[in-house]
């Protein structure tokens, strides 16, 4: 009957829809990474081994992997680019689901986390086979060391430097070949450049970006002999209120702000437009990453580069950058090691310096011929001798997140003029809790 057949049709449709939904849910469980490349482990077919390689953002790795493939017939590298903000989350999900890559290029700051949670494998014996092991950047090696082993391989040195606009220096009556070497000099130079008017600012402060300020302000502190964090471990604390150089640095920034040498929009700069004014030729001094330099040069800016100075001289840098790791579960470790060794070769590290304007991770490359061919990278490489990088599990949560204690204290002291003693004490208390929580959470009791 008409009624029954309608009911039957409805029943069939309903059940079919339910079945299709269930099937779709069952199938699609895997990760949806930026491109399709995340198959688990490596595979071998007729003599060619394929290894899966995850890289972050757009960096030398993509180009280098292509060069590797062109010159190695028996190993093929399958590259996947993963956006930085999701990198750790995606890696965690992939490794948990046994679909992680073989080799990964990740932010060196994450190395202790990956080591402690078993994401990367112990590569100590591999490192001992490298003739240049002792010249690998010591800060990055420190990040990779964990419980007697090494869980990452230094790969790119992304050290922070001081960049300045030589043209604006000249206009302001300053010697373009004499960048400031003390904080007092930075202040006077910035004031003279701001006096040029016409929307020109002397200095840059990425006020609401924790990642930017740790990268550029902490070297000022280190170069002056200060400390920001205590040793890695369950009882790690920040030393913002106990190290006088931290207070000095924030007061210095406060003075730069109140003297009008910084654009007012910098206060809410969260990193997305950081450095753009400098690249457009509107700023005198920018502490940051030399990766910005090609854009500035294209816009006609004559860029000078110098190390980030301490209060009364000296210099330091924040050794950011990337490390390579062999991911837990990789099936063809020999191929992974071949690839990593190749990536650390002199020619490849020179590629990192040009066209990428990053810094090689091998201090043995700092020769006079290197300095004359790659003057900009040489600045970062030299500064790395005095460079540091904080080793901590809870680093992101305590310093880079928008509400991190460091970011709050920075905003309060530099822009709101709060008393540094109280602000930094509060920051230390809150950071201590976060660091303890994070350590407990990831490494366990």
């Amino acid at each position, binding site marked *: 009957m008409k009624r029954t057949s309608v*009911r039957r049709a*409805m029943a069939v449709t309903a*059940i079919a829809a339910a079945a299709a*939904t269930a099937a779709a849910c069952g199938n699609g469980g895997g990760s949806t990474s930026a491109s399709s490349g995340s198959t688990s482990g490596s595979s071998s077919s007729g003599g060619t081994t394929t290894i899966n390689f995850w890289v972050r953002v757009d960096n030398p790795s993509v180009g280098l992997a292509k060069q590797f493939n062109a010159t190695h017939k028996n190993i093929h590298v399958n590259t996947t680019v993963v956006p930085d903000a999701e990198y750790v989350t995606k890696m965690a999900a992939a490794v948990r689901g046994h679909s992680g890559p073989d080799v990964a290029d990740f932010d060196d700051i994450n190395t202790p986390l990956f080591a402690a949670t078993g994401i990367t494998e112990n590569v100590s014996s591999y490192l001992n086979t490298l003739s240049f092991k002792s010249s690998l950047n010591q800060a990055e090696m420190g990040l990779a060391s964990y419980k007697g082993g090494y869980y990452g391989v230094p790969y790119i040195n992304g050290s922070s430097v001081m960049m300045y606009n030589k043209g604006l220096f000249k206009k302001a009556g300053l010697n373009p070949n004499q960048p400031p070497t003390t904080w007092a000099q930075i202040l006077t130079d910035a004031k003279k450049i701001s006096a040029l008017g016409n929307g020109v600012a002397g200095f840059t402060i990425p006020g609401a970006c924790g990642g930017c300020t740790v990268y550029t302000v902490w070297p000022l502190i280190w170069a002056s002999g200060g400390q920001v964090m205590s040793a890695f471990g369950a009882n790690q604390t920040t030393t913002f209120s106990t190290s006088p150089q931290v207070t000095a640095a924030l007061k210095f920034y406060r003075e730069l702000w109140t003297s009008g040498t910084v654009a007012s929009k910098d206060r809410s700069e969260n990193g997305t437009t950081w450095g753009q004014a400098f690249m457009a030729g509107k700023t005198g001094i920018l502490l940051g990453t030399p990766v910005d330099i090609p854009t500035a040069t294209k816009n006609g800016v004559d860029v000078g580069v110098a190390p980030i100075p301490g209060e009364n001289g000296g210099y330091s840098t924040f050794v950011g950058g990337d490390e390579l790791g062999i991911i837990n579960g990789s099936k063809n470790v020999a191929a992974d090691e071949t690839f990593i060794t190749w990536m650390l070769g002199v020619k490849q590290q020179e590629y990192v310096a040009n066209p990428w304007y990053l810094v090689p991770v091998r201090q043995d490359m700092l020769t006079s011929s290197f300095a004359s061919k790659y003057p900009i990278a040489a600045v970062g490489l030299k500064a790395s001798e005095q460079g540091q990088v904080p080793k901590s599990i809870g680093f992101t949560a305590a310093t880079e997140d*928008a509400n991190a204690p460091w970011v709050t204290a920075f905003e309060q002291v530099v822009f709101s003029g709060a008393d540094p003693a109280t602000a930094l004490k509060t920051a230390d208390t809150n950071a201590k809790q976060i660091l303890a*929580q994070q350590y407990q959470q990831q490494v*366990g009791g």
Partner: protein
Amino acid sequence: MASSGVPAVAGAGPVPAGPVPAGPVPAGGPSGTGTAGAGRQPAPRRPGRNPLARSRARAGFLMSLPALVLVAVFFVLPLILVAWMSLNNWPLIGRATFIGVQNYSSLAHDKIFGHALWFTAEYTVIVTPIQIVLGYLLAVMVRRKLRGVGFFRTVYFMPVVTGFAATAYVFLVMLTPGVGVVNTVLESLGLSNGQTNWLTSPGLALVVAVILITWKTIGIAMILFMAAMQAVPEELYEAAKVDGAGWWRRESRITVPLIRRTTALVLVLTVAGSFLAFDQFFILTQGGPNNETLTAVLWIYTTAFVQYRTGYAGALSIVLLVLLILLSVAQIRTLRRGDEGS
């Protein structure tokens, strides 16, 4: 007026005076089956005894099966999983360990969560009356069939169909000092010095968020109220006009009581939506400065994906869910009581 236990249907207006059907059309109505004496059979006292009612029930069940499956897979199952996670120390990377109710006891001491709940409540209390009053007024404007009213309906409703994250980003850019258009316009009008930092001051940031959400979602309230108002019979207004009632009396004595159920719906939707506010605060201020514009969901996000403490985030989620259920039940009960009392 006749009241009934029929649950509020979106936009349902008042039932005209007269015999009110107690539920779906009883068996024996115009159905065209061969049941003997169909039109005259009294409604059976026990549903399910009647084969027709049973087959209707089965058909109803089958039709809702796909939706039930989706709800089960995408809501019930994850809910059970989250409840389980909340009893564990479950780092994003690494092994999970069972810790019982420890997450809940840490939660009780979590000052940031307390502050986030307070801020979320504050935000809800601000947004809800605005949505109801403004939605009502807009509906009054667009409910009549005048020429060109379709244009206004579209204009007010269009923000609803734009992507939320995209509009939040547009607002962000418009408000950035030195880059955005808002400061430039205010400066040229002489209303400010053009340097206002909208998003680094919690008070201003809240104002911005309220403006954004109102602009974005007022269309929904407007449409719901409009549909409810259109179901109010014209005769009531004409009778009132004859009696000499002015606009205000007509609105407050006729419209407002008769669209009570829609008002309840808008209230529940707005409160629930505001309680779960995330997108605008994530994009505009990231909860800052110093957690002053942090909402409950944004804090859950931070603990899960910035601090990698997904077990603790699960506990926070469960607590928020319970709060929201209690809140919704309280709202519906209060409004239903008012309904039956009239």
